[in-house]
């Protein structure tokens, strides 16, 4: 989408100014993401006894179409961190490129020091906020979690650079559907199985109520020892609730 307009074209176009105004961007500037195209939906992260658990589905929606169903939205960053992203997938890939370079330079020092989740989180906050100030945002909400030196960390950054840390984090619809569950049921000393159960409960809820959710999820775990991302799997769903049977019977305007 880089607009290179020759002088001749420009003079021709200027005669059709009115209709062209809407098509022409300012000469020389390139436009970046103003609206997202391929998007991922919620990511949920929680702290548990040994570290962090993060869950996200594998869907990439193109507007209202569920176009891609194998998008990995949780990735590893360095030795100690995980990043999960919702929002524009191509911007997430761009962020992964930035992070790749960051971790590379960190490793090149070769001095026993390494960037932990807190450092990655703050670095991304700076990146997102600076992009927002240039009116060229990376259209993502990010969840960064990890464990370093026994210290668990879980934080979030939005596309406008709002960042915070918490014991449980969610993006997008997850904020409305998953966090209330987590507020009720989250505890400091959750075991791995308990944590997964809570996450699955949240994801199932999202599956029922978020139209851009797909039933193919991955759960990632990171502890002091290392990281594992599960193979994709589906949640069991139940559709025989009484309210789902003949849902239009007695509805407004029906007979």
């Amino acid at each position: 989408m880089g607009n290179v307009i020759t002088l001749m074209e420009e003079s021709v176009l200027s005669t059709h100014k009115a209709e062209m105004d809407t098509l022409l961007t300012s000469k020389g500037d390139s436009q970046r993401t103003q609206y997202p195209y391929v998007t991922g939906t919620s990511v949920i992260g929680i702290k548990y006894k040994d570290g962090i658990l993060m869950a996200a589905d594998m869907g990439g929606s193109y507007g209202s179409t569920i176009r891609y169903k194998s998008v990995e939205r949780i990735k590893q960053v360095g030795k100690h961190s995980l990043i999960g992203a919702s929002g524009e997938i191509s911007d997430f890939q761009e962020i992964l490129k930035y992070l790749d370079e960051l971790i590379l330079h960190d490793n090149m020092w070769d001095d026993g020091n390494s960037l932990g989740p807190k450092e990655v989180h703050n670095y991304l906050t700076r990146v997102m906020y600076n992009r927002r100030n240039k009116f060229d945002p990376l259209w993502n909400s990010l969840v960064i979690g990890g464990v370093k030196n026994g210290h668990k960390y879980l934080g979030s950054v939005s596309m406008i650079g709002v960042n915070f840390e918490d014991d449980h984090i969610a993006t997008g619809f997850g904020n409305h559907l998953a966090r209330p569950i987590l507020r009720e049921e989250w505890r400091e000393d959750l075991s791995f199985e308990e944590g997964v159960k809570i996450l699955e409960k949240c994801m199932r809820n999202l599956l029922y109520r978020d139209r851009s959710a797909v039933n193919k999820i991955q759960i990632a775990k990171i502890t002091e020892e290392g990281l594992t991302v599960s193979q994709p799997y589906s949640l069991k769903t139940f559709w025989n609730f009484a309210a789902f049977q003949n849902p239009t019977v007695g509805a407004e305007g029906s007979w």
Partner: protein
Amino acid sequence: MFRNQYDTDVTTWSPAGRLFQVEYAMEAVKQGSVAIGLRSKTHIVLACVNKANSELSSHQRKIFKVDDHIGVAIAGLTADGRVLSRYMRSECINYGYTYESPLPVGRLVVQLADKAQVCTQRSWKRPYGVGLLVAGLDESGAHLYYNCPSGNYFEYQAFAIGSRSQAAKTYLERKFEKFTESSRDDLVKDALFAIRETLQGEKLTSHVCTVAVVGVGEAFNILDQETVQTLINEFEISGEEAPINESNVEQSGGDGDGAAPDQRGAAAEEGAAPMDI
């Protein structure tokens, strides 16, 4: 070192493979007043001798706080040292702003060394004429580094630079094996002893020296004059020959509140500290 035909430019090698300008820069460090550093597993102490130009003037600052977890003591051209300290502070602040985390001292030292190296390879620059003892904490514990005008850096358990530093080094060489396990107060005491060694008979008072400490749970801070004087009095080392026998010393507060010199009885068992170089 004598003048020769290869020493005009920093970019001229001698036939023996030496860069004389760089070596002359290291001489400038040797002419500065002494700075010493020593570390344990959890603390690092920096100390230096302050020499004022005259009785009328104040002494030059040779110890700089770079960040809560890093401090530096310099010897040589203090103006160069000041400029490098400003660079170090800047680097620490920028790293802290981006990562909300303290800059690992090992990385700062490498950046400093690379900066110094540039000046050894440009015909329009000169090497920095200052040696820096960088004390800092990072994830792997307490560190003490020495940065040379040549662009080299070394890590030390204890070190001394500047004029008559050899006296201090001799003292430190005798004692350094204990330093890893030393307490903070013992470390400060050893620093003061080492400073005394370089004074060659001059009386050690807090006007003549500056001491700074950084450690786990203790941000880098320069001890104020009364505290240092109290420590000196406590340890009874202001010019007397007998060092305190280490094993008999009680850790008596050590922070200068209620100085009670109870070391009197424990004096002079190990033999007099050698006052010669």
